[in-house]
C-alpha cells in the first residue's frame, strides 16, 4: 500500500505516525513545503528567545527514520490529479498513491488595505520563515504595529515585547481576543500588556499604510485619521487554506476542503485533515483528523467523534485563561453565572441545564471537565451543586480496563 501525505504539521505528522503503527509494511511518503517539523503555535516562543528553532520540533528529531517514512521536504505540490491518483510536485516529479491525505494547512491572509500588501516590513506570522524574518527585522526597528488582536496577533505581541520594542495593536473588534474572551477577560490582558508598554486601538480599522521612498513601512493611518509611526507591521489577519493545487470540481470545498467524520473527501482514497479543511483550524482537531484519517486509510473504520473547535487555552504574562464555547449569552433565555475571587474570574453560560460556554481566568485547574460537559452538551440539572463546584467526581465511572468514563 502506498500512502502519500501532503503536509508535515500536526495533521500530517499524526497521520504518518498512526499509519505506521497500523501498517508496519506500507510505503509512506510525506511531502512538505516546510524543511523542518515545527509547531507553529510555538513560533512566538522562538521570537521571544524562549525556545530554539530545534525545540519547536514536536515530533522528535528522528521522526521520519523512527517511523520509516520517506520525506520530500521543501517541495510544494503543483497539481493533484485524482483521476490518475497522482500528485505532481513543483520540481516536476510525479508521485502516485493508493491513499492520499491532504494536510497542506493554510497560509496567512493579508487584507487588501492600501500599501499593506506592497510595503516592505509587513510580515504575517504563520510559518517558521515568517518568524525568522521578524526576528531579524526587529533588530533594526523600534516601533511595531500588530494588525489584528486575535490569538496570532497577541502571540506576536508576546514575542515582540521581549525585544523591548514599542508595540501598537490595532483591532477592528471592540476588544482584544474578541473570539475567545468577553470584555472583562480581555481587559485583564489589556491591562497586563499595557504595563509592558503596549498601546491598543480597538474598534477601529486600518485606513492605509505609508511607505518611504524605498517602500519600507513608515506609518499607518487609522480609519478615524490618527497617524501612527511604525517601521514594521505584523499582519495577524486570518488564514486561508492551501488548496491551489486542487483542480476545480474535483474535491468539494467550502472555504476549505469538505470531509466527513471519517476524514474522507468526496473523492475516493483522498482524505483531508487539519487547517486545509473547513473545520475549526485548531491543533487538537488537526491531530485527531490525521489519526482518524490514518485508520480509515488503512481500512479500519474510525469516526471523528470530537470536532468541537470552540476551545482555546491562553497563557500570556502568567495569566491563564480557558475559553470554551460561547463567551457571551446570545439572549435572555441563557443564564450567566459569574464568580470573582482575587485574580480569578469564572463565567458559565447555561440554558436548560446544559452549559454552552465558559471562561475561566486565573485558576484553570481541572477545567477539562467543563470542556467535556460543553462539547457533549451534558445536562447537569440533576447535580445539586454550585455550578463552579461540579467536577468529574459527579460523573465518576471506571471501565474494566481502568479508564474513566462519564455516567450521565
Amino acid at each position, binding site marked *: 500500500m502506498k500512502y502519500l501525505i501532503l503536509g508535515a504539521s500536526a495533521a500530517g505528522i499524526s497521520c504518518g505516525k498512526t499509519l505506521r*503503527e497500523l501498517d508496519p509494511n506500507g510505503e509512506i511518503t510525506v511531502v512538505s513545503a516546510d524543511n523542518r517539523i515545527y509547531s507553529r503555535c510555538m513560533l512566538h516562543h522562538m521570537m521571544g528567545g524562549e525556545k530554539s528553532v530545534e525545540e519547536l520540533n514536536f515530533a522528535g528529531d528522528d521522526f521520519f527514520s523512527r517511523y520509516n517514512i520517506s520525506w520530500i521536504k521543501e517541495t510544494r505540490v503543483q497539481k493533484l490529479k485524482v483521476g490518475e491518483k497522482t500528485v505532481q510536485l513543483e520540481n516536476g516529479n510525479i508521485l502516485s498513491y493508493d491513499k492520499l491525505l491532504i494536510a497542506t494547512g493554510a497560509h496567512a491572509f493579508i487584507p487588501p488595505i492600501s500599501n499593506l500588501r506592497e510595503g516592505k516590513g509587513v510580515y504575517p506570522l504563520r510559518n517558521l520563515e515568517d518568524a525568522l524574518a521578524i526576528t531579524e527585522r526587529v533588530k533594526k526597528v523600534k516601533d511595531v504595529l500588530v494588525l489584528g488582536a486575535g490569538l496570532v496577533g497577541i502571540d506576536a505581541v508576546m514575542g515582540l515585547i521581549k525585544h523591548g520594542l514599542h508595540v501598537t495593536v490595532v483591532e477592528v473588534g471592540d476588544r482584544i481576543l474578541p473570539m475567545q474572551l468577553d470584555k472583562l477577560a480581555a481587559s485583564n490582558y489589556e491591562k497586563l500588556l499595557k504595563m509592558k508598554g503596549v498601546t491598543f486601538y480597538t474598534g477601529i480599522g486600518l485606513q492605509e499604510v505609508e511607505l518611504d521612498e524605498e517602500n519600507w513601512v513608515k506609518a499607518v493611518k487609522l480609519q478615524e485619521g490618527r497617524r501612527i509611526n511604525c517601521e514594521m507591521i505584523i499582519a495577524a489577519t486570518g488564514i486561508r487554506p492551501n488548496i491551489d493545487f486542487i483542480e476545480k470540481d474535483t474535491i468539494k470545498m467550502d472555504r476549505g476542503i469538505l470531509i466527513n467524520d471519517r476524514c474522507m473527501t468526496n473523492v475516493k482514497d483522498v482524505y483531508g485533515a487539519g487547517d486545509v479543511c473547513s473545520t475549526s483550524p485548531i491543533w487538537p482537531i488537526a491531530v485527531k483528523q490525521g489519526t482518524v484519517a490514518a485508520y480509515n486509510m488503512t481500512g479500519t473504520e474510525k469516526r471523528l467523534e470530537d470536532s468541537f473547535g470552540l476551545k482555546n487555552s491562553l497563557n500570556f504574562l502568567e495569566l491563564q485563561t480557558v475559553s470554551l464555547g460561547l463567551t457571551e449569552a446570545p439572549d435572555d433565555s441563557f443564564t450567566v453565572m459569574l464568580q470573582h475571587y482575587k485574580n480569578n474570574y469564572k463565567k458559565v453560560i447555561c440554558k436548560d441545564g446544559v452549559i454552552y460556554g465558559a471562561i475561566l481566568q486565573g485558576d484553570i485547574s481541572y477545567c477539562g471537565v467543563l470542556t467535556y460537559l460543553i462539547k457533549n452538551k451534558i445536562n447537569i440539572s440533576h447535580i445539586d451543586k454550585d455550578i463552579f463546584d461540579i467536577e468529574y467526581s459527579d460523573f465518576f465511572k471506571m471501565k474494566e480496563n481502568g479508564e474513566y468514563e462519564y455516567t450521565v
Partner: protein
Amino acid sequence: MMGKEKADKGDDIMRRIMIQRDLCMGCLNCGLACMAEHNEKGKSIYDLDLEDLKNESRNHIGLDKERRPVPIFCRHCDEPECVYTCMSGAMTKDNETGKVAYDENKCASCFMCVMACSYGVLKPDDVGKKVVVKCDMCMDREMPRCVENCPTGCLYIEGGNQA
C-alpha cells in the same frame, strides 16, 4: 488484515492504578505520598514541607454531589486527549508501557492539555504556572507510592503482566 498486530496489542491491559472508590475515605495519604515521592528535598515523609506550595500532588481527591470522596488519578488513557492536544511534543504516549509521559522541558506552557483532559486530572503548577502537574506512575519505582500508601486498598495496581 492490516493493523492486526496493533489490535492484538491493544487487547493487553496496560498497567494502571485501579480505584475502588467506595473504599476511599479521603485521608489524602495518596496525595502526601505523591508529594513526598516527587519532593526534590528527599523522599521521606519527614522531608516534606507541608507549607511549601511547590509540593503538589499529581492526583487529587474530589467530592461528588453526595460529598463522598472520589480519587481523581491520571488514567494514562488509551486515547489520551492531553497527547492529541499537545503542540510541543511534551506529552507523549508510550505504546509499550501505556504510560503518558510529560516532559516539562519540552512544554510550552499552553495548558491545552489542562483544557483537554475530560476527567479534570491536570492543572498548571501553583507556584510557577509553567509546568503541568501530571502523574508519572513514579517513573521506575516498582509500585507507585500512592498505591503503596493507600491504607484502605482503594488504590491498587492491575495489568501490565502481558507486556
